[in-house]
């Protein structure tokens, strides 16, 4: 019990303040508020972006992270798209195929 009590006190001390989380959450939600885009529209944007990327590289669409980010009343579309492999080989072989 003493240990629990101690660790609770220490744990509290070591835990980062809740304000960083507040700021991070606010920034994300405000970016979304400011673009004023519907969830359906956003999903389409995400899908189109994945399709576009997939034309050139092999991506992990399930794990891509697309969001709006804001600062100083400006907006940015930020996408992190995991690349599994390049398509150089298949691209080159297709080209060869066309020429042949």
């Amino acid at each position, binding site marked *: 019990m003493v240990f629990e009590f101690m660790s609770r006190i220490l744990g509290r001390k070591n835990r*980062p*303040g*809740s*304000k*960083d989380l*507040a*700021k991070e*959450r*606010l*920034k994300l*939600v*405000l970016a979304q*508020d*400011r673009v004023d885009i519907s969830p359906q529209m956003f999903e389409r944007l995400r899908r189109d972006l994945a399709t576009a990327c997939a034309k050139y590289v092999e991506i992990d669409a399930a794990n891509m992270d697309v969001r709006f980010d804001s*600062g*100083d*009343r400006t907006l940015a579309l930020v996408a992190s798209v995991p690349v599994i492999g390049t398509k150089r080989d298949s691209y080159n072989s297709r080209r060869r195929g066309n020429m042949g």
Partner: protein
Amino acid sequence: MNGKVMVVTSGKGGVGKTTAVANIGCALAVRGKKVALVDADIGLRNLDIVLGLENRIVFDIIHAMEGRCRLRQALIRDKRVQTLFLLPAAQSKDKDAIMPEQMKELTSELADEFDYVILDCPAGIERGFKNAIAGAGSALIITTPEVSAVRDADRIVGLLEAEGIEEPKLVINRLRPDMVKRGDMLDIEDVIDILAIDLVGVVPDDETVITSTNRGEPAVLDGVSRAGEAFRRIAARIEGEDVPFLSMEAPSFWGKIKRFLGAGR
């Protein structure tokens, strides 16, 4: 006279709009300015009781607008500060009783007589908000360091921009220095960083705001109130003075004792 018409707004309710209007208006009047405070929250009249003028209302804003009395008759002079006046909201009507066009006329008529016309905007972004901002040339946005209030303030900035009210100024209300120090409350810089508008003042969370409101006396009239001092500085900045921001250090042991003695008066 060609006075400034300023709206005090927040989006979210309960962040201290009415208190801010009463205190900033009172502080400006103490500085010798002629100030008219307009309660634009039709149906939820509050500014009168915060100012301690609730027993002196005969006519209200709707009476004046409908021509049932002259505007001058509806204005209540403050009992302590001779240059402070209140135009009370109607309690029996609702927000649809006014059109933005009428509000524009009324505020411009007041601006002929007063240095400052300060509008207490209702919470929300509907009709009452649109009425309150209709005649305003500038805006003060009140927020508290909480995610919900800051989010709503951001929405208000956008809506004001769309209405052509540029460069609203920010007041951060009810800041708790002890919580900021622990990293458990959004700091002044965090809020400015997020909203990206100019800061005009920071008001610490202060019990004297509640006790002074209980008495119907704005905290700016209380010499020891920290919040009162913060509001006086906001008034000075509105007047174009360059005054330093109130220190937001967590109160020391002695500071607490001093405050205890001050509050006990």
